[in-house]
């Protein structure tokens, strides 16, 4: 029915007592996510909102409460360390919402994730999170725009994903799982990783991939799509009108002075791989529909 998260997910919230942590944990609990613990160092033994046990460490949350997934709302100077803490505690899936982590810190995290002894998957950072509609919402996306179904959505953006999901829902197309992989240049799960998970998921029938200018994540995904994906797949790239050499809000969204990472090149790679492209961001769901009619 989904990938990575479902009703069996046992979530620990790192930074549960902060403003963002508290607000979004309330939203996730309301949605039905099973939040088994929170972590705020020094507040171990207390209860968050009189319900969720607070631990001093992620290790404690795993040992005592059986947490298998973590979400991070910790401020940027401490966020990379929080990711490493979850890896060491044996968490299977980490979702890092935090924006503004230094690139060098993320390089260390990637180095750790790449070690053969590590079996953890990271989503983000600088992302809205992941949701399997009707089962589990981890992150900051508004729950009500989603609908249970069989379209997998992967995106580097937050609100642009909501835009695409809302288009799908309004057309009656539900989603199996929606993943925001985040707008940072160094992240955990790539476009290609997410597309592969959807391709191998028997309960996902179609895929939407939303990219942005900068880097080559979409091109890498397209190589995989061309070789392996026969499910209907549609996509959009944001930033066709962006100037060269400027960072467009997301640290990873930059066309280099030499002109690498343009929307044009990414659209071309998608077409070449058989992805139905939407040139207009309000027609993303329509592009997917053409896979069925054509």
């Amino acid at each position, binding site marked *: 029915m989904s990938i990575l998260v479902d009703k069996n997910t046992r979530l620990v919230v790192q930074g549960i007592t902060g403003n963002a942590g508290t607000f979004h944990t309330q939203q996730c609990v309301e949605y039905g996510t099973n939040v088994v613990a929170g972590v705020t160092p020094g507040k171990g033994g207390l209860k968050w909102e009189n319900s969720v046990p607070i631990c001093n460490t992620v290790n404690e949350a795993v040992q005592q409460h059986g947490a298998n997934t973590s979400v991070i709302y910790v401020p940027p100077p401490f966020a990379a360390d929080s990711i490493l803490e979850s890896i060491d505690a044996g968490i299977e899936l980490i979702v890092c919402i935090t924006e503004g982590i230094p690139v060098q810190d993320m*390089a260390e995290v990637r180095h750790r994730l790449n070690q053969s002894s590590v079996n953890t998957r990271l989503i983000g950072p600088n992302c809205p999170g992941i949701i399997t509609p009707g089962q589990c919402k981890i992150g900051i996306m508004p729950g009500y725009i989603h609908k249970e179904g069989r379209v997998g959505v992967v995106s580097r953006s937050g609100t642009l994903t*909501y835009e695409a999901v809302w288009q799908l829902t309004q057309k009656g197309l539900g989603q199996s799982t929606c993943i925001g992989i985040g707008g940072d240049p160094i992240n955990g799960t790539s476009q290609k990783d997410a597309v592969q998970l959807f391709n191998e998921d028997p309960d996902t029938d179609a895929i939407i991939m939303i990219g942005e200018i900068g880097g080559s994540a979409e091109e890498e995904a397209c190589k995989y799509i061309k070789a392996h994906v026969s499910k209907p797949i549609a996509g959009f790239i944001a930033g066709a*009108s962006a100037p060269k050499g400027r960072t*467009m*809000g997301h640290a990873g969204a930059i066309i280099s002075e*030499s002109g690498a990472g343009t929307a044009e090149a990414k659209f071309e790679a998608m077409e070449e791989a058989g992805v139905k492209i939407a040139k207009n961001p309000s027609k993303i769901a329509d592009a997917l529909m053409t896979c069925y009619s054509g």
Partner: protein
Amino acid sequence: MNIHEYQAKELLDQYKVPIPKGISANDEASIDSAIAQLDSENLIVVKAQIHAGGRGKGTFTDGYKGGVQLCDSPEKAKSAGLAMLGNHLVTKQTGPQGRKVQTLYFTEGSAIDHEYYLAVVLDRESAQTVIIASTEGGMDIEAVAEKTPEKIIRVPVSLDMGLKPHHCRLIAFKLGFTGKQVKELSNILNGLYRLAIEKNAELIEINPLVTNQEGTLVALDAKVSFDSNALYKNPDIAELRDTNEEDPKEVEASAYNLNYIALEGNIACMVNGAGLAMATMDIIKSYGGEPANFLDVGGSANEEQVTAAFKIILSDPNVKGILVNIFGGIMKCDIIARGIVSAAKNVSLSVPLVVRLEGTNVEAGKKILKESGLELTSADSLAEAAEIITQKVTA
């Protein structure tokens, strides 16, 4: 974050990378003092300090040619400096309006035997530091990489091991250095690598690194940029920011934690989220309009930030219409609506405004706008909003 060449050279000096003697100046008195401190037997190089490449081949808006001047006397150096100071330098990277030169850098000239290229980059794709070197220095390295990729040396440095002597030897011998030059290059590489790691530099580029007539290695030019997200670790680096080099509207926006980039068009946009903000610019363009800016108000903007955002986009005289596109997630539509109403009270709104709200608290938001009595058009979808604002502006 970018810094000036003279600031980069001071950092190189701290990390024991050899540079020609140089002094910065920003008025006539400091020009005199800078020139007096340099060896008058030598050529003096006068360099305009702006955050853009191609200075040497640039032209000033008053017709004066060259943002880098080689002068054979102190008098000529002074008159070159005075001609540049306060003048606007146009290069291939500045756009036609150019950049105002507010600081000059006077350095002693070096007799050059050969020019090399050297860079330390935090490579985003491989998530590690990479040293890039070439015997083809002094020119556009991207052109070299395209035409003669075999002349580019790339050496990745593993994060947990750091830079090792064998990395330095490999680069030195590939560049054709011999004898004491191998040791010199090794010292330079160690300095650059330490600077990159300790100060969170994303790019350190020495172009050119030269050998002088004695065969000694010297860093003749330097470009350094830092990870803006890591400035909290290095307050000394944060102080090197020169807001004169940024668009005043962008500086104002950054004070309110807004992500704003000024563009050339006439349709301003205000959006939450970077991806949606880019997509909004794209759709304006696809309907034949031109976006005046990129503006991401972020995920959790308050009323004050929204008001500030509104004032900033309206301070651009080119703006002939405004498109607000909000997909409320964390951001609640009623907060955006209150910000718009409050801003409209403060500034006289003389251009058409189209607002598209969707998501959290959308009904409350629409109600606030409707009851405010503001003259605006509500749109139900992104496509409709873009179509209406382009029609209004181009009509």
